[in-house]
């Protein structure tokens, strides 16, 4: 059986690895010259640029299992179990999770810090009891409101929102708490309060292209698969025999048609929409894809001529255009090439800054960084880069959950994968991996039904 996987991001790579394991002959089509999609990395004039700041959490079980399977798990460096919040003037608030079972480690972290006042801590911990006790299915019902609304509904003090949960929302979904659905946030609360390790943070030791995707690619090719980068798909060809519509092939931009028995569409939302023929919009399943939206994202990287930080961990902040940042030279040793810090800053919300020039955006980030880390002011800048992604992960606004498609489509030999398809980890690397697994399973079962159906 031959399967074409469209899109070489984490979702596509996972689906391809699963299908190769199941004995399928896989061909993976990636439009860019590098694999990884939204988690890709590349070199511009020798400077290793990454498309974002990518963090591995302890609760990313499927992703970590997949990394073990392809042999990349040891590339993850786990950090001290502490969440840091940077404040102006070089101050840092620490949420240290001690080595006791959940949720007690979280209760300690949320109470023993100097970011929140005691009454704020109390309202926060009291409200988090609900997502702790509730099942994931019940938590999912909170997709009817924004996180800010949920926050008010359950009586948490406003200061907790501005100083703590808003930066978390911005770093997770690139949306402010006022725009983001309560579901992803409360899902995180649920996981973090159930498992002690869930909130632990890990970094890849270097650029994801070399340290993660290459392992996937080797795993797939070792099982007879083929990876074709630089192959941009123009459209999916649909055939409509009496038994219902079926994908007959994939037309590349070059005009070449790749034919297979099954297809996994693991392209991001906006690209998937372009590839699907308009006639499919008559089906409500596909029409929903046009109703989901995606978020614009920016990431700034600055190389300094000296080390401006020694902290081997991620920082959150409420006082900058970016919500999370880290010194990659410290957290990821393979980035430590120039003898100085490499500060990566994830800008969110990106929309309000979108109209500025690259230099203006970088300057705004640097000004904020100088306030958070006063020592960086003395360092000279060797190089700076800005990555703008107009259509990144899907927009996790209230009500969007109901629009997310299942991996199984009405077309028997087509499955969808990607963060935007239905799975419980929303827009994250773990979500992409889970959707890839589910897409592979959906395709295999869907096609076995086709083969066994009497014609």
């Amino acid at each position, binding site marked *: 059986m031959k399967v074409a996987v469209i899109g070489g991001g984490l979702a596509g790579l996972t689906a391809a690895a699963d299908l190769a394991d199941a004995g399928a002959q896989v061909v993976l089509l990636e439009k860019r010259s590098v694999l990884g999609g939204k988690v890709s990395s590349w070199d511009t004039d020798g400077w290793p640029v990454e498309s974002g700041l990518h963090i591995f959490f302890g609760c990313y079980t499927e992703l970590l299992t997949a990394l073990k399977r392809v042999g990349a798990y040891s590339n993850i460096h786990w950090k001290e179990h502490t969440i840091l919040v940077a404040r102006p003037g070089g101050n840092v608030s620490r949420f240290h999770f001690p080595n006791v079972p959940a949720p007690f480690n979280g209760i300690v972290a949320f109470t023993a810090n100097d970011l929140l006042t005691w009454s704020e801590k109390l309202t926060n911990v009291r409200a988090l009891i609900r997502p702790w006790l509730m099942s994931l299915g019940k938590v999912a019902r909170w997709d009817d409101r924004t996180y800010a609304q949920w*926050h008010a509904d359950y009586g948490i003090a406003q200061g907790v929102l501005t100083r703590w949960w808003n930066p978390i929302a911005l770093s997770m979904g690139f949306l*402010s708490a006022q725009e983001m659905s309560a579901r992803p946030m409360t899902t995180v609360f649920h996981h973090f309060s159930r498992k002690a390790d869930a909130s632990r943070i890990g970094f890849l030791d270097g650029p994801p292209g070399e340290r993660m995707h290459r392992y996937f690619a080797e795993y797939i090719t070792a099982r007879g698969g083929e990876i074709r980068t630089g192959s941009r798909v123009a459209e999916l060809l649909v055939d409509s025999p009496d038994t219902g519509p079926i994908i007959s092939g994939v037309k590349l931009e070059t005009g070449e048609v790749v034919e297979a028995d099954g297809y996994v569409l693991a392209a991001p939302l906006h690209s998937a929409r372009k590839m699907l023929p308009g006639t499919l919009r008559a089906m409500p399943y596909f029409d929903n894809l046009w109703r989901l939206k995606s978020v614009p994202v920016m990431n700034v990287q600055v190389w300094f001529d000296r080390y401006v930080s020694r902290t081997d961990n991620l920082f959150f902040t409420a006082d900058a255009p970016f919500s999370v940042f880290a010194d990659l030279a410290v957290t990821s040793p393979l980035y430590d090439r120039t003898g100085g810090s490499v500060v990566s800053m994830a800008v969110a919300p990106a929309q309000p800054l979108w109209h500025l020039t690259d230099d203006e955006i970088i300057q705004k980030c640097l000004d904020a960084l100088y306030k958070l880390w006063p020592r960086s002011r003395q360092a000279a800048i060797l190089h700076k880069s800005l990555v703008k992604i107009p259509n990144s992960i899907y927009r996790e606004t209230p009500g969007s959950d109901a629009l997310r498609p299942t991996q199984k489509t009405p077309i028997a030999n087509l499955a969808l994968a990607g963060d935007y398809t239905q799975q419980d980890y929303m827009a994250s690397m773990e979500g992409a991996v889970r959707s890839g697994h589910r897409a592979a399973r959906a395709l295999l079962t869907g096609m076995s039904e086709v083969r066994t159906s009497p014609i």
Partner: protein
Amino acid sequence: MAGLSAAKYLSDLGYRVTVLEKREVAGGKASSWQDADGDWLESGLHVFFGAYRNLLAFLRETGLYDNLVWMPHALTFSSAGGKLSPLVFPGALPAPLHGLAAIARSRGVLTHPDKLRTGFGLLWPILGSQKYIDSQDKLTWKRWHLRHGLSRRSLGDFFDTMALALNFLPSSEVSAKLLLTVLSHFGKETDASRVAFLKGSPELRLFRPLLAYLQARGVNVRFNSKVRAVRYSEDDGAVTGFELDDGSVAKGDIYLSAMPVHNLWKTLPPALRAKAPFEGLRHLHGVPVMTVQLYFDRPVTGVHNLIFSSRSHISVYAELGAICPDFHEGSAGRSMVELVVAPAAEWFRLDDAAVVARVMEEFTARHPLAGQAILVKSTVVRIPQSVYRALPGMDRYRPNQATSVPNFFLCGDYTRQDYLASMEGAVLSGKQAAQRISVAGLNAVTQHSRP
């Protein structure tokens, strides 16, 4: 709304109707128009409550009901320091238990003794008859409130805001009847306190389709036709025509005024001004109100609902950019918050920039994250005389829709109907005017046919 409602119900009854409107847009106090950027300016923040039976029936009858978007059943109160206190009405309970449960479960607004006192106080409007409520028009809400054992805290945090949102007047001025009426509806009807918004601007989502509906039924609508005077013949004891600004006279068999009360007063001839019930109109005045729109570069409140704000000038507001699909689509990331400034009188002398600066100050105190957002645009709409002032004792001056002149009728929020100054009141007054006209017509017919 009153005039168009009357036009609709009159044409249903088979009357040939001509509507005269002095502006080039319909809607009066609910009108909206576009500025140079193509953004919609509104004369106010228009909220549809579940209690608005007649308005909702009117929208259903004209096929406009789907233009509403209903919010979760909660009333959200914000206060300085960024605290949001939602009053969530549990869906499983019927009225009035859901309201009492909402108050009991609320956080931040009231202390527990306050809640108990409020709960007991609310038994009056819940159990009281319409007659009882009418009899309380002699008191201001504040006096009623304190006399019936409710606390000063609940007055300041809660009922003052409601009074400002409903009539743009503080509770020390507004008649107790106004709040009692609202509370009795909220206490008796389960979904009365639920809130809906139009999906977009009133012009596109309400008035244009409504005008098309009316015109298809033969109603003639003439814009830019300002009525200068009501012509009255003392000999016949009848109105003989509406004199327009251009000097022409609009003639009909029956005349109906749906003008605001101050405009009606200006057009009335001295003979009518001295006559009951018109003489009482001199006591009815409109309240000044301002509507401010703030356009931010990102969503700022996170609340997809109406927000009441205590101890401030921004009595009620909503992030329409997040609520109304029309304002959301193609907004390029902008989010618009529309706020009602009340009490507005003391800010009326300020210029627009100063008004916006003060509104921003109060708004960011309530939503600290709005301080990080950039204000890309702001608009101010001032209405010196909006809905009539529901002061104590004013109720007896409100005229019936049928007047002492047999062929002259009135409608508008200020006329006698049970819903006070609201869109519901306007629609109901129009409906009642149509009924009175048809009854009067029947009487006339029966009188003529008598031998």
